[in-house]
C-alpha cells in the first residue's frame, strides 16, 4: 500500500514539536468585545443580519445555558474554562459573509492554499486539482467563501454558509434547526445555540444524488477566540450526499475552545455520509496549549430505510469530547460509526457514539479504533439503546485499542440498554500493545523501527480507513503517522 510509504515520509519529515498547520495568518480582524452576555449575542445576531426569530432562539438558549452545569462525567481533566475570557466573534475585517472568489482577501486564499484546501474553482476545473470537491471555508467566526455553488444549484443542491441560509431559506431553517440537537440538549450544545457564528448548510432535495463531495474547512486563527460552528445537513427522500469536514488551528500556548453542533436529517431512503478529519492543534509536547474540542454531532434517520454513516479520524485537540450519534427512527434505517482516535503527548480523548434504535428492523454498526501513545488517555464511550418498539434490531460493536509505550491509557466504556427481546447485540473489544514480538519480527525483515510501527498501526486501522473517501484516506494515514511521531523509544 503506497500510503504506508507516505506515512513514513511524513513521519520522517516532521519534528514532534512541529504541528504543520500551526502558522498564523496576519489579517485585520473585526472582533466582538471579550466575554458572554445578551449584548454579545445581539451583536453576533446583528453582524449576521439575522431575523428577529433567530435572535430570540439564541437568547432563549442563552437563558437556558445560564442554568446549566458543565458536565464532568467524561474521563478528561482540564482547568475550569472561564467563559468570559473568550472572544465569541472574530472575523477578517470587511468580511461579513461569503463573497465570490475574486473578492476574497488574497491573504485568506494564501492561508487555504498553505493548508492544501482547494478554493480556486478555475484550477479545479482546469484539472490542476484532481478531484472536484465543493468547499465552504470557515475562518474563525465567518464563512469566507463557498465554491461550486452555481453548479450545485443546477442540481438543486443548496450548499452555503448557515448565516446565509438563515437569511435566504428561513423556512428550511425554522423547520430543521435544532430538530435533532435541541437547544436544551447539553451544556455545550446550548452554548453553541446561543453564540454560533457560522457553519455550513446543505439541502439535497428529493431524489437528488449530490454530484460532488461537499466539504467544510474550519480554521481557528484568532487568539483567545472560540469557534462555535453549526452545521445542518438535510437529505430529502431518496437523496444522497457525502460530506467531509476538516479542521486546523495555529499553534498557541493558550487553550482555545471549539464547541460545534452538527445536525443531520435523512428522510425516507436518504443517505448521508459524514467524514471528519480532525486535526486541531493538540498542544505541545509538555501539554501546553491546544484546542478544547467539545462537539455535539447527531444524525436523525427520520425516514424509513434511511442511512447515516459517521467516519472520523481524530488526531488533534488537547481534549476531545465528541460522540457522533444516530437516532434510528425510521423503520429499516441504519446507522454506522467508524472511528480512529489517535492520542499522543498529553492529549485526552473521550469519544464514541450513541445508536438509539426506535424503529423496527433498524441496524447499527460501530467500529472504533483507539491508538494511544505518549502519556495520553484515550476513552471509547458508547451507548447502544434498543427501545421497546424496535423489533428485530441489530447492533454490532467492535472497539479495539492499541497502546504504544507503557505510560498511556486506553479505556472502553460501553453502555447497552435493551428493551425489546428480539434485539441482537454483539460487542467485541480488545486492547493490545504493539508487542515487542511484532516490532522485532518486522525489524528482523529489514523494516526500520518507525516504519515497522507505522506498518502495524496502519494494519490496525485498516477497517476504518477503507470507509473514507479516497483523498481523505491518504490524508488520514499521513496524519496518523505524524501524530505518532516521537512515540517510539
Amino acid at each position: 500500500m503506497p500510503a504506508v510509504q507516505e506515512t513514513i515520509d511524513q513521519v520522517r519529515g516532521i519534528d514532534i514539536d512541529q504541528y504543520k498547520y500551526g502558522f498564523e495568518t496576519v489579517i485585520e480582524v473585526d472582533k466582538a468585545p471579550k466575554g458572554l452576555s445578551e449584548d454579545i449575542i445581539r451583536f453576533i445576531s446583528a453582524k449576521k443580519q439575522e431575523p428577529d426569530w433567530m435572535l430570540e432562539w439564541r437568547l432563549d438558549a442563552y437563558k437556558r445555558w445560564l442554568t446549566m452545569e458543565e458536565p464532568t462525567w467524561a474521563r478528561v481533566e482540564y482547568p475550569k474554562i472561564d467563559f468570559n475570557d473568550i472572544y465569541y466573534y472574530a472575523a477578517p475585517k470587511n468580511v461579513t459573509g461569503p463573497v465570490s472568489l475574486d473578492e476574497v482577501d488574497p491573504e485568506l486564499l494564501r492561508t487555504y492554499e498553505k493548508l492544501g484546501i482547494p478554493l480556486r474553482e478555475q484550477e479545479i476545473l482546469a484539472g490542476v486539482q484532481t478531484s472536484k470537491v465543493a468547499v465552504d471555508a470557515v475562518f474563525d467566526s465567518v464563512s469566507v467563501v463557498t465554491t461550486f455553488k452555481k453548479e450545485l444549484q443546477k442540481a438543486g443542491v443548496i450548499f452555503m454558509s448557515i448565516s446565509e441560509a438563515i437569511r435566504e431559506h428561513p423556512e428550511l431553517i425554522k423547520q430543521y434547526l435544532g430538530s435533532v440537537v435541541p437547544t436544551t440538549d447539553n451544556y455545550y450544545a446550548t452554548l453553541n445555540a446561543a453564540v454560533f457564528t457560522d457553519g455550513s448548510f446543505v439541502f439535497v432535495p428529493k431524489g437528488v444524488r449530490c454530484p460532488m463531495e461537499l466539504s467544510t474547512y474550519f480554521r481557528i486563527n484568532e487568539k483567545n477566540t472560540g469557534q462555535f460552528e453549526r452545521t445542518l445537513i438535510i437529505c430529502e427522500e431518496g437523496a444522497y450526499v457525502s460530506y467531509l469536514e476538516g479542521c486546523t488551528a495555529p499553534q498557541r500556548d493558550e487553550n482555545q475552545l471549539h464547541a460545534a453542533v452538527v445536525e443531520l436529517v435523512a428522510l425516507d431512503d436518504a443517505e448521508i455520509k459524514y467524514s471528519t478529519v480532525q486535526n486541531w492543534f493538540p498542544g505541545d509536547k509538555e501539554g501546553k496549549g491546544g484546542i478544547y474540542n467539545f462537539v455535539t454531532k447527531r444524525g436523525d434517520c427520520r425516514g424509513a430505510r434511511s442511512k447515516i454513516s459517521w467516519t472520523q479520524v481524530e488526531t488533534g485537540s488537547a481534549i476531545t469530547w465528541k460522540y457522533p450519534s444516530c437516532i434510528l427512527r425510521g423503520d429499516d434505517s441504519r446507522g454506522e460509526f467508524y472511528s480512529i482516535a489517535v492520542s499522543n503527548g498529553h492529549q485526552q480523548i473521550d469519544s464514541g457514539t450513541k445508536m438509539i434504535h426506535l424503529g423496527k428492523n433498524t441496524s447499527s454498526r460501530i467500529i472504533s479504533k483507539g491508538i494511544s501513545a505518549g502519556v495520553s488517555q484515550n476513552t471509547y464511550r458508547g451507548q447502544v439503546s434498543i427501545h421497546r418498539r424496535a423489533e428485530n434490531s441489530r447492533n454490532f460493536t467492535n472497539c479495539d485499542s492499541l497502546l504504544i509505550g507503557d505510560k498511556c491509557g486506553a479505556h472502553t466504556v460501553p453502555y447497552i440498554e435493551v428493551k425489546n427481546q428480539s434485539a441482537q447485540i454483539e460487542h467485541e473489544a480488545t486492547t493490545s500493545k504493539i508487542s515487542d514480538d511484532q516490532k522485532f519480527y518486522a525489524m528482523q525483515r529489514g523494516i526500520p523501527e518507525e516504519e515497522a510501527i507505522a506498518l502495524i498501526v496502519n494494519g490496525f486501522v485498516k477497517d476504518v480507513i477503507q470507509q473514507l473517501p479516497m483523498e481523505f484516506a491518504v490524508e488520514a494515514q499521513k496524519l496518523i503517522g505524524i501524530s505518532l511521531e516521537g512515540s517510539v523509544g
Partner: protein
Amino acid sequence: MLEIKNLHARIAEDGTEIIRGLNLTVKPGEIAAIMGPNGSGKSTLSYILSGREDYEVTEGDITYNGESILELDPAERASKGIFLAFQYPVEIPGVATMQFLKVAMNEQRKARGEDELTTPDFMRRVKEAAEQLKIDPAMLRRPLNVGFSGGEKKRAEILQMALLEPTLCILDETDSGLDIDALKIVADGVNALRSPDRAVIVITHYQRLLDYIVPDTVHVLYKGQIIRSGDKELAQELEANGYADVIETAA
C-alpha cells in the same frame, strides 16, 4: 562468514545468563546444525544473532563478514543479509502478506542503496517463489500469519527467506508443528536456496529435519556452550543415544 567468539549473554530484564562462552564459526556455503536439549540456549542464540533487545551481550563478540554486528539493530542486521525463520511466526493483523513482503524487500533494498522494485517485477518474484513452495496466492492477500495453519506459517517464513535472499539463514525449530508433507516442502525450499555464498544455521531438537536438510557440521549446545562438534553422523548418534552420553563425556 560468521564468527562467534567467547560469547556471554544474559536476559536483560533479570540478568539470567543463558550463553556462557560460546564459540562457533560458520563458513560460506556451510549448513550448520545446532542441536541440544530443551533450555540449552538454542532459541536465545538465534535471537542474539538477529539482535533482539531482550538480551545483553556481556562478553565476547559476533562478527559477520569480518565486522562486529553487536551494535546493529535487527533491521540493520537484516539488511546485511541475516534472516531468522521464527519458530513461532508473529501475526500482523490488517497487513496483507503481500504488502508486508513489498515493504520488507524495498526497505532492505533502500538500506543497501538499491532502487525499489517495480510492481510487475515484485509480483513476478512473489509468484515464482510462492509456486515453488506450493503457496496458494489467496494466502498472500490475507493478513500476515493471521489464521494461518502451522504449515502455512512455516511456508510463509521460507517464502520471505527466498524473496529477501539473505546470506545467513537461521532456521529456529522450523520442523516443529509440521507434518511430513509440509516438512518436505519446507526442506525443499531451504535446499533450493543452498549456494556457495550462503550459509544456513539449522536449530533443531530432533534429527528428523536433518534427513531432509543435510548438514555439513553438527554442534551440540548445552548450558550455553558448544560442547561437541562433528559431522552429520553426530546427529544420528544423538538420535540413537540421546544427549546424555554427549553431556557426560563433556562434563
